[in-house]
């Protein structure tokens, strides 16, 4: 059923790097007591709110970085 080549797992280094990148946003939002605070405010937003809005962008960036790591690793291993 597969179009090209025989699929192989990616190298462990790339998997670990991607895993760390994906774990960061999870940890950042799991530590509720750390960010459940009113101050410091930013543009009128309490810390609790702007911290989580900030992580919308950061989580997106970290996930994209993990995607790039895996894509890079896959390119290296693609049978040609």
């Amino acid at each position, binding site marked *: 059923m597969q*179009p090209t080549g025989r699929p192989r797992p990616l190298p462990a280094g790339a998997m670990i790097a991607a895993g760390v990148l994906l774990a960061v946003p999870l940890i950042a939002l799991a530590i509720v007591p750390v960010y*459940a605070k009113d101050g410091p405010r930013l543009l009128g937003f309490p810390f609790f709110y702007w911290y989580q809005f900030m992580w919308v962008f950061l989580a*997106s960036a970290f996930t994209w970085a993990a995607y790039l790591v895996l894509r890079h690793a896959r390119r290296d291993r693609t049978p040609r």
Partner: protein
Amino acid sequence: MSGLATLASGRGVNGVELGVVIFFFLLVTLGGFVAVRWRRAESMDSLDEWGLGGRGFGTVVTWFLLGGDLYTAYTFVAVPAAMFATGAVSGFFAVPYTIVVYPLIFIFMPRLWSVSHRHGWVTPADFVRGRYDSRGLALAVAITGIVATMPYIALQLVGIQAVLDTMGLGGSGNWFVRDLPLIIAFAALAAYTYSSGLRAPALIAFVKDTLIYLVIIVAIVYIGVKIGFGGMFDAAHAKTAKVKGATFIPNSSTYWAYGTLAFGSALALFMYPHSVTGVLAGRSRTVIRRNAAILPTYSLMLGMLALLGFAAVYKKTSVIGQDGKPNAQLVVPHFFDQVFPSWFAGVAFAAIAIGALVPAAIMSIAAANLFTRNVYREFLVRDASPKHEATVAKITSLVVKFGALVFVLGMDRQNAINLQLLGGVWILQTILSIVAGLYTRWLHRWALLVGWAVAMVYGTVVAYHQASPTTKHFGSSLALFPGTHTKVYVAVTALLVNIVVTVVLTVALRLLNAPAGTDATQPEDYYSDTPSAASPVDPQPAPTPAAPA
């Protein structure tokens, strides 16, 4: 602002708002029927085409489809309503929830995509069937999916109702006149879903998301310029301090509630059949991973929508419905009605109404796929052809939507909300079979089935006993964690019960050498992908060079 006076019950229909909504409704109905020609297939007579849109959606289409699918009209209505009524713990958790879901999707879903793509599987229960060689476990997963999805579809109708009520269409004493717009909207939805399958919501999602983003950006600019964020948060702080059980920012008694709601809901979200359908319709693993990185844009929008609940607190928006009773679900439509000119309020209402149609279509397709594959073909007609399957699925999608309509029109809205709450508790209990199964076959199929059953009963009973000021049962998705004074999300406690039972029974069954069945999958099935340099996977794969095993 003429808001408060005109929002009193019994006012007439707002013609401008209604006209704008009807215009967009006709536009998407046309789109829904035309969608059958989009990415035209040779034949729509298979689940791959009708139920998964040909399995060929690229990054952009998938972004719109999954965005339209996961961020439903009910979310748009309920999250700000929760913020308005009780503040952050019951409302704003949706933001971390819809952030942490994407790293999880990034990790798990490509494996499910790969193994399903290789074996032609359409539903998560197909995977469980193949992986564990267990019709019973697959049936459990399928039934859980269908039962959890049904009230979710019903709640999309509640979203439309909130808009209709705000436009002045909810006040008639005659139930038929009152409910006619809803019946027409759902009949049109049912008709084009029947003919176009998953292509219809995928196409309509473009309209829905464009309108939603437009409305939110305008609303946020309005708040920033006219109200000011500091004033808005201060008004919300003052209100939540006065309401019992309300929170402005979680404190030591609600940290766990907030965290478990966010993580439990995230784990549950991609177990829902409609999420899996959206993911499996993607063209490749790369499409899924890219989308995991770009879908959080919708979470940004959801967070801003949540803040509208606070803005409504500042504006003292009325939530009195046409029936004269207060209903927090009306807060967002009423806020738009209060602060926007009629034509733009109409655009906002159209966004919510269309926002209900997209997920309702995908959910009914996902439920139909489950019924067809894992109940009908598995237990009733075992040699059903692809064409036969597609016909059964189409009819099932009609039945599912009709059932949701009857449910909403015939029963108290609170029932739909209770069942949706329970749906989240239930669907999370399939995660062991699906996600653990993507990595290991160590857990025994019988243990998984018993663990699932125990956790379903446990979660249901605990949720039943939660009282709130407005209802005696199913009053909250939070309950005390056994042996502590800390409230956590019921689904998470039930999942822990599920894990303990499953692991203990697995050890016992393995000691007894209970038959584990035959695994239909190979290890490389889980990471098979086309290299990004080569042509993308298409529905007709190129001939495979014989690979040595």
